[in-house]
């Protein structure tokens, strides 16, 4: 199945997955079942906009404005990031 998100899909972190502050190492880390993923600034910027309400298209638009970058490029990067998380079952989607 294709795990790509459409513009109106609303991604969310499912139960058992959360982004927290890594007190010792600094920065944010995504905690999931038996996995901890250190997030870079981009990953953090994406996931801080994922709340189950915001639509994929709106998240892209927001990131493009905030970072003054072309939507097309942002969309490609975010899509890749989210597909990776969905394949590991670390991201859910309301459609």
């Amino acid at each position, binding site marked *: *199945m294709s795990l790509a998100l459409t513009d109106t899909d609303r991604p969310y972190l499912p139960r*058992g997955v959360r982004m927290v502050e*890594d007190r010792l*190492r600094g920065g944010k880390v995504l*905690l999931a*079942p*038996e996995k*901890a993923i250190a997030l870079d600034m981009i990953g953090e910027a994406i996931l801080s906009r994922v709340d189950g309400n915001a639509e994929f298209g709106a998240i892209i638009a927001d990131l493009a404005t905030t970072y003054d970058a072309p939507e097309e490029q942002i969309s490609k990067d975010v899509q890749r990031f989210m597909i990776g998380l969905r*394949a590991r*079952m670390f991201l859910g989607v309301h459609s």
Partner: protein
Amino acid sequence: MSVPSPIAMLAELTHRCPLACPYCSNPSELLGRDSELDTETWIDVFQQAAELGVLQLHLSGGEPASRTDIVELMQGAHDAGLYTNLITSGIGLTPRRLDALEAAGMDHIQLSLQGTNAELADWIGGYRGGFDRKMKVATEIRDRGIPLTLNAVMHRHNLDDLERTIELAVEMGARRLEVACVQFHGWATTNRNHLLPTREQTIEAKRVVAEAEQRLRGTLAFDFVPPDYYADFPKSCMGGWGSAGLNVTPNGTVLPCHAAESIPHLTFESVQDRRLAEIWFDSPAFNAYRGTDWLPNPCQSCDRKEIDFGGCRCQALAISGDASAPDPVCGKSPNHGLITKILEQAAKPTDTPMLWRGAVQ
């Protein structure tokens, strides 16, 4: 060399367990209830772990639900800010206890699977009725929406049921399936001639997992631990000795991996005597095989040395008699012929009966 802080800690709360799997990862010398750390000490260890940088805590055993204080321990781990994972056979997890564990902040359950039907599973687990009880617990877990990983321990006697195992994981609502082929340490080594899969089973298992992984994308994530005697390269044990994880045994002994006590010349320290951080950073046992400076040849000149760190120390010792030798699973190891011999031996019928893990009070 700067030593990183650990990410994950495996807390073996007890060696007690209603099951008696012949591949149990507990050591052959099992500890009884009398030597187990008390509630307060464990919770202190969880806090020390969080301060040391541990993010993920695996509450395991034995069967962790054999501890009457499992809910208190879960709460203590949660309060320390750790991500909590209960590694269980499901036996002893009543609906009431599941509710209490959920309320105490349990993040995730890893449920073990011995087989896909009662006859096989109860024979392997050495516990009649275990399979049916496990299936009931799985339903309770699914109904509560608790994130679930099914950990299917695979070997010669159940690897042919892999397709059904995958179906079962989907039916249980698991998000993740670990197809964990038995690792040959301790009890499993004793039973190696019964448990080693055949080469055909190994090839078929890889095909089935690869196919299912594609088909079930977005439904079930897979982690596959293939039978490593058939591999070309050794596993990177623990991601490198003393690098990402640590293990605390029921009496508080701190180990770089669960089988490390099989290396007799190393002395392992206890949280009863020393702070966890001191043991992690300063103890000779943790520094013995840390990094790559200690690596022998051909590892030292190998372009995979930062990938597998010479493989598994316990396996190097168990098979080649030298814990600092290259893991003999590696095709480049001078002792690789010993692996070939083991595979040949295991392909022949064996006279020795299978030995189930002993009980412990």
